[in-house]
């Protein structure tokens, strides 16, 4: 019991509030006519869908450069990979893995450039990252109109030039992970492949932080001077962290898109960043430390909250209050993390 209380004291107040709110929503759901199994399967699907994007926050936080607010930079790489795979006309798992392959290759390149820039602006990474993300998305919006893609499924029917706002993936790699080994128990659906992929990604990142390079990233994030004195090159460690984060963002958006069934271009990448940052913070991370556990807990809590609040709250209030709630919860959480006095290692 004492240990439990001790654990409880360490939990952030906002996380606690969100958790209690979630419990209250479930209690409320039990009294309304909402089907709980379908809510649960929706939640689980969304956890797998967003998980890899949240995972992308881990490397940069651990390297001491804060959450990767430049997530759209990596997302763009992922979108390019997916577009190339579609242009080649590949379907099913081939399409998916080819998309991942191209995304990783492109993100490696972009990540090196982006990491180089962040190194130049040490101390302002979050702000520069945010605006790099915005600029890249605006720039790529022009590119989506100009790039020479020719697959008629992808470009505007009229004019024959420029990619559409959303591209349907059914004929390509839509839901391949979700449907892999999927099983049903009553109204409850379990997307095995999707969760396996997320778990695999988490495990790989976990393994990476056990290697020499991973440990040196940790060391740089905790104490740069100590890291230098133990023979670690901090610039290189941070660069590796940024590249890894960018690659994860690229892979993450492909996982997201295949589960959603649509590839969203133009402004859409911008709306991925803040929920991802908020998720990991809700999971107990701070802007200085984060673990895989934070990713899993945070994504689970935040996505479940978003999934069940819509049907449950719409029975109590009118109109869609969830969008507003999402804004307040995610930004409130980030604001809390930015303004609290740095807590030491735990």
């Amino acid at each position, binding site marked *: 019991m004492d240990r439990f209380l001790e654990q409880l004291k360490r939990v952030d107040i906002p996380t606690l509030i969100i958790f209690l709110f979630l419990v209250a929503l479930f209690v409320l759901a039990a009294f309304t006519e909402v089907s709980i199994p379908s809510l649960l399967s929706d939640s689980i699907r969304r956890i797998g869908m967003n998980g890899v994007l949240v995972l992308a926050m881990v490397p940069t936080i651990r390297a001491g450069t804060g959450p990767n607010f430049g997530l759209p930079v990596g997302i763009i790489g992922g979108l390019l990979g997916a577009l190339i795979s579609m242009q080649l006309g590949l379907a099913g798992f081939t399409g998916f893995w080819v998309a991942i392959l191209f995304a990783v290759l492109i993100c490696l390149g972009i990540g090196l450039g982006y990491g180089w820039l962040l190194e130049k602006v040490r101390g302002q990474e979050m702000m520069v990252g945010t605006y790099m993300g915005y600029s890249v998305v605006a720039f790529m919006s022009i590119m989506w109109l100009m790039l020479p893609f020719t697959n008629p499924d992808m470009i505007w029917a009229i004019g024959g030039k420029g990619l559409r706002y959303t591209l349907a993936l059914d004929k390509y790699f839509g839901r391949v992970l979700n449907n892999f080994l999927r099983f049903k128990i009553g109204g409850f659906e379990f997307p095995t492949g999707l969760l396996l992929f997320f778990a695999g990604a988490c495990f790989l990142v976990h393994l990476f932080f056990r290697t020499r390079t991973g440990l040196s990233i940790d060391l740089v994030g905790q104490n740069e001077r100590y890291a230098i004195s133990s023979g670690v090159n901090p610039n290189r460690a941070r660069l590796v962290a940024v590249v890894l984060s960018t690659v994860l963002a690229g892979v993450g958006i492909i996982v997201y898109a295949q589960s959603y069934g649509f590839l969203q271009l133009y402004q859409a990448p911008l709306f991925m960043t803040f929920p991802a940052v908020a998720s990991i913070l809700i999971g107990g991370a701070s802007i200085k430390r984060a673990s895989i556990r934070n990713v899993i807990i945070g994504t689970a809590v935040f996505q479940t909250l978003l999934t069940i609040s819509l049907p449950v709250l719409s029975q109590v209030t009118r109109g869609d209050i969830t969008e507003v709630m999402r804004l*307040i919860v995610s930004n409130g959480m980030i604001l809390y993390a930015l303004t609290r006095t740095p807590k030491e290692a735990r």
Partner: protein
Amino acid sequence: MEKLKKILISYAVPIAFSILCVSAVLVAQIPPIFLASEIVRRLSRNTFLVLSLIIPIIGGLGLNFGIVLGAMAGQAALFFVVDWKIKGLVGILVACLMAGAISVVLGWLAGLTLNRAKGREMITSMILGFFANGIYQLIFLFFVGSLIPFRTKQFLLPEGVGLRNTVDLYGTVASALNNPWMIRIGTVRLFVLPLLIVAGLCLFITLLFKTKLGQDIRAVGQDMHIAEVAGINVNKVRVIAIIMSTVFAAIGQVIYLQDIGTINTYNSHEQIGLFSIAALLVGGATTRKATIWNAILGVVLFHTLFVVAPSAGNRLFGQPQVGEFFREFLAYAVIAFALAMHGWRAKKILM
């Protein structure tokens, strides 16, 4: 020669932007008279908002993305002025007073928040803006008409709760500041009253930095620790700087909206932060240094490009959309560039 090089480097952004503007104007082939009238109008409409950014920059708080809080206060006040059917200049005055009162509170809260996040004020003020946007939507989508009385049914959603996407000011306070003392030169209309108000704010800022408070703000901006040692209450000075910025932003938003004539309930305030900051930076300001002239030059340059970009994009690529994305890209890129320079310099000082 050395000197010329130095000038070129420190004015690199405005010079590059001027070249871009001139070429875009040439490509777009916009009639000069039309361009002139648009710019004069935008000068009277947007400069006040851009000026509201200057005080926190000098106070060392960087770009105050939190001016959207002020903009929200300005909008909120206008909703009620419209609802109470207060017309003309009186309406503007009531709106400014109300917006001022709300934004003093908001600015105070923002200042306290930023004091807890020293060294990362900009990202915090930006997130604060997003957070406040959530609260704003909560109030105006769900509370207006239910908890907060609102009589004008035509502005409410069909269920009678929540404001519609657009609230128009025609018949109440639209152009209330523009109409008196308007001077016509050919087809160019000069709105003297808003321009005078802008001049008033310029004068206020100039005089402020001659007073004790202004000197304190400058001292805090140069070095917080030295200012602390010199006996300045650093936290208090920073809060005051943010409050002033928020209040001016609120008044600026009122001026802006009376010119536009309709309030885009859930969008008008969001773009304000981005475009005001981009304009100031285009005018040659940095995250640590800004003058009134940066603001004015910035508004002229940025809005020239704003007016001509779609038609330039259309001429060059056959798609007006390209021009629109391009000007958006420029706004973001200018900010990203300025922030990168800021980080780069800060790093050099550390080493």
